[in-house]
């Protein structure tokens, strides 16, 4: 039963990955990749690694893919007609290289002597956590430092350059500088206001003056 589920999930992962890397629309590619990641998470669960399976769903499919979607939608990159998708001539060397590599890998793995199955006791989540924080404590610290550096670097790269010289001059919206609007403003200025309205409030004045 578990073997059948594994092969179904493996086929799902491979097909979803193929669809993801051949899809021209980036948002559809990300969604196919989320499908592939979910099936990989279930494979991890079948391999008796529930911690990695849960982290795969939460971090990979939940955080990283949503970050991709966020950037694609923020930069408005979901236009496959802009000509960034590869031509079939660009697919050719990639397909040849991948095919040769996969064939070599399959030949090597199949011709390898199958080692006898060791009835190994699987580590529980408690043992994984103990091993993580007792034996690999330095690595945990290094990873956290790396995440901190990534955070600082992303903040530095993503900050807005506020350059006052390159900014366009501010203009009030909806006012074309026509005579009617100007006359309305002049009519308003005869009204006993303490100060003339600033430039940006032309539309408000235009709405309330009739």
């Amino acid at each position, binding site marked *: 039963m578990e073997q059948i589920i594994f092969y179904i999930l493996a086929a799902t992962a491979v097909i979803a990955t193929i669809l993801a890397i051949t899809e021209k629309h980036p948002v559809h590619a990300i969604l196919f990749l989320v499908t592939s990641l979910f099936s990989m998470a279930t494979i991890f669960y079948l391999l008796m*690694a529930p*911690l990695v399976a849960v982290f*795969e769903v939460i971090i990979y499919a939940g955080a990283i893919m949503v970050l991709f979607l966020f950037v694609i939608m923020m*930069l408005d990159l979901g236009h496959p007609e802009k000509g960034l998708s590869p031509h079939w001539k660009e697919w050719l060397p*990639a397909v040849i*290289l991948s095919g040769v590599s996969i064939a070599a890998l399959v030949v090597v793995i199949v011709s390898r002597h199958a080692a006898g199955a060791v009835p190994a006791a699987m580590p529980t989540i408690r043992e994984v956590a103990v091993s993580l924080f007792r034996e690999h404590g330095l690595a945990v610290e290094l990873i956290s430092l790396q995440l901190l550096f990534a955070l600082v670097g992303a903040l530095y790269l993503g900050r807005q350059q506020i350059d006052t010289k390159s900014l366009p001059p501010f203009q009030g919206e909806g006012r074309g500088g026509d005579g009617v609007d100007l006359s309305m403003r002049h009519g308003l200025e005869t009204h006993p206001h303490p100060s003339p309205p600033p430039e940006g409030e032309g539309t408000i004045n235009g709405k309330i003056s009739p």
Partner: protein
Amino acid sequence: MIVPLEHILILAGLLFFLGLGGLLAWRANLIMMLVCIEVMLNAVMLIFVAGSTRWGNADGQIFAVFIMALTSAEVSLALAMVVYLHRRKRTVNTDAFSEMKG
């Protein structure tokens, strides 16, 4: 192990080389290059977890978690760089950023 280790290795190799081929083919689009790198890292994680299950050792799962943290750091930096490059030239085409070409 529910299935032989060889089958899991073949699945991971398939996913890895699919990601590699996609990376080579999509070399004009920064976003899709990052997506293909994700596929490759995911295949490597599958090999680590399969080894952990095969030998009953927790280190493989720990390294898979480390790879996940590394990937999140890499993706956040790379996407910040994509936003920065898009702000400079209004495109994510890698051919547009060739100022250092001799």
